[in-house]
């Protein structure tokens, strides 16, 4: 009986503040209208993309020239494009490509950017200097133009598109991670870990990275929105997806010359981009509000 009571007391003293902080954060995320709305939209988009063959009736690639440029009907919910393909199917399949582009390019940016940021922040000195000068050079061009320049050299295609957009987002994560590391490295628990004989790798992976995670998650969500927009823009210019891939930006580009006859392909493909980007921005902003109570004041 005594022990159990003591256990309880100990539990209260030790883990309660931790747990309640976590609970509070989860609660804030859950009660954040923006985050919830964004997450619901995002889940719908992701499910539609994953289960595309079950959601759609028509083939997204199969052409049917006799059926071209039809307005929305019960057969073709959003109408057909200039090759008679079902716009709804193409948009749903396009979601696969856009989400993949978003994930992979942000993955590239997070992987390289965060590594650069950790190295710069953790080691300081000349390492920091060299890395940050490289970042400065990457920031000398606006992100979209950097991606444009890179893809002009690599040549068009979805893989090159993801590389180019990913590289253009590296500076964001390098800077963010560096400042996060600098903020954490001064903390007592890092000093304590170091005093206990933790080597660099342990310090970085066990203490610094887990503690810098929340700004990275927020930024990654927002960067995914941005990279989907950039990728759509580059595909629109003909530098990304190649026909007959149902990519949203490219669909707009190829339907563009027919807007005087039928605007549905342009309108709906664009709306798909807007909704996806909007939902990612909502989640990102909501998470930022929830993870960083300082910004709550602005709500």
């Amino acid at each position: 009986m005594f022990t159990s009571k003591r256990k309880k007391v100990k539990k209260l003293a030790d883990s309660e503040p931790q747990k309640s902080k976590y609970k509070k954060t989860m609660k804030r995320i859950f009660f954040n209208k923006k985050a919830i709305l964004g997450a619901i939209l995002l889940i719908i988009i992701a499910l539609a993309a994953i289960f595309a063959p079950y959601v759609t009736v028509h083939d997204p690639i199969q052409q049917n020239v006799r059926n071209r440029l039809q307005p929305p009907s019960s057969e073709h919910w959003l109408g057909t494009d200039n090759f008679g393909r079902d716009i709804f199917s193409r948009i749903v399949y396009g979601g696969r490509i856009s989400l993949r582009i978003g994930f992979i390019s942000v993955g590239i940016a997070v992987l390289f950017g965060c590594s650069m940021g950790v190295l710069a922040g953790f080691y300081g000195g000349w390492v920091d200097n060299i890395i940050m000068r490289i970042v400065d050079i990457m920031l000398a061009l606006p992100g979209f133009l950097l991606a444009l320049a890179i893809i002009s050299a690599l040549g068009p295609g979805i893989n090159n598109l993801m590389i180019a957009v990913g590289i253009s987002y590296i500076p964001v994560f390098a800077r963010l991670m560096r400042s996060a590391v600098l903020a954490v490295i001064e903390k007592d628990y890092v000093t304590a870990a170091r005093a206990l004989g933790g080597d660099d790798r342990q310090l970085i992976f066990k203490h610094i990275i887990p503690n810098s995670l929340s700004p990275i998650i927020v930024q990654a969500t927002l960067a995914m929105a941005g990279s989907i927009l950039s990728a759509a823009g580059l595909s629109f210019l003909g530098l990304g997806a190649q026909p007959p891939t149902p990519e949203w930006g490219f669909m707009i580009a190829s339907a563009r010359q027919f807007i005087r006859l039928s605007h549905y392909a342009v309108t709906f493909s664009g709306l798909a981009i807007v909704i996806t980007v909007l939902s990612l921005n909502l989640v990102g902003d909501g998470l930022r509000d929830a993870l960083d109570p300082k910004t709550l004041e602005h709500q």
Partner: protein
Amino acid sequence: MGKYTVKRFLALIPVLIGVSIFVFFLIHITPGDPAMLMLGEQAPPEQLETMREQMGLNDPLPVQYINWMSRAVRLDFGRSLRSRKPVITEIVERLPNSGVLAVSAITLSVIIGIPIGVLSAAKPNSFFDNLFTIITFTAVGMPVFWQGLMLIIIFSVMLGWLPSSGMMPDIRYFILPTVALSTVTIANITRITRSTMLDVLKEDYVRTARSKGVNENRVIYQHALRNALIPVVTIIGLQFGALMAGAVLTETIFAWPGVGRMVVDAIRTKDFPLVQGTIMVFAIIYALVNLIVDLLYGLLDPRLQTKYK
């Protein structure tokens, strides 16, 4: 301040050298032989060899870079492969067209963005505030090129009010491109103005003014707005980058004879000297605009001047 200006200006040099290395290597990352890219796939081998010699491709890379760079500092980026005109002439011919579009977009953004931001901050969480929060949020997610096309569909195809593309000395040709290009900037300026206004309205001097019995309008428009505008100036500078990127797409949509559309055409036709020159010029302009904004920021906020000395 003078010393700071010089220091900032000198700091640009290594960055621009870095960009020039990047731009120089663009043609070397490209799969394939640069000489073949210039002459086409069917070029006879002797001609390719002459071209290689002429381009200095047989020299070691650092030598090639130094040769390219020593010409680039004199703004000589070679000749366009398509038009055979000097790259810099091509750029200078189109730069004013892009400039006009950028200036009108920034002006429109400031005229619309700042008042909406201030009004939203004056009554936070009012119907007006919430409405504009939703609108700005959606606007940020809209691809520029799609928005441009939607404007064309509505205002020139359906209503027939405005021309769909081209640039003529007629205000009607400017309306759609300006609106398309400025939407994202308007949204961002609105958001920043709103949040800095909210910050400023919490300051002590605002409370003092209010408790003195100063009229609320005067508090907002005189005391608070002046101080809130300082960060907004920086944002306008940052937006310039988004504007350059947006210009590439907007000019393509509206067949606007600017630098942005030119670079897209150059990329499509693999006109490498033109691509290299344009990207270099973009970087220089971007760097200068940021420098000017930074200095302006120092001028507007006397608190910062002591720091720079």
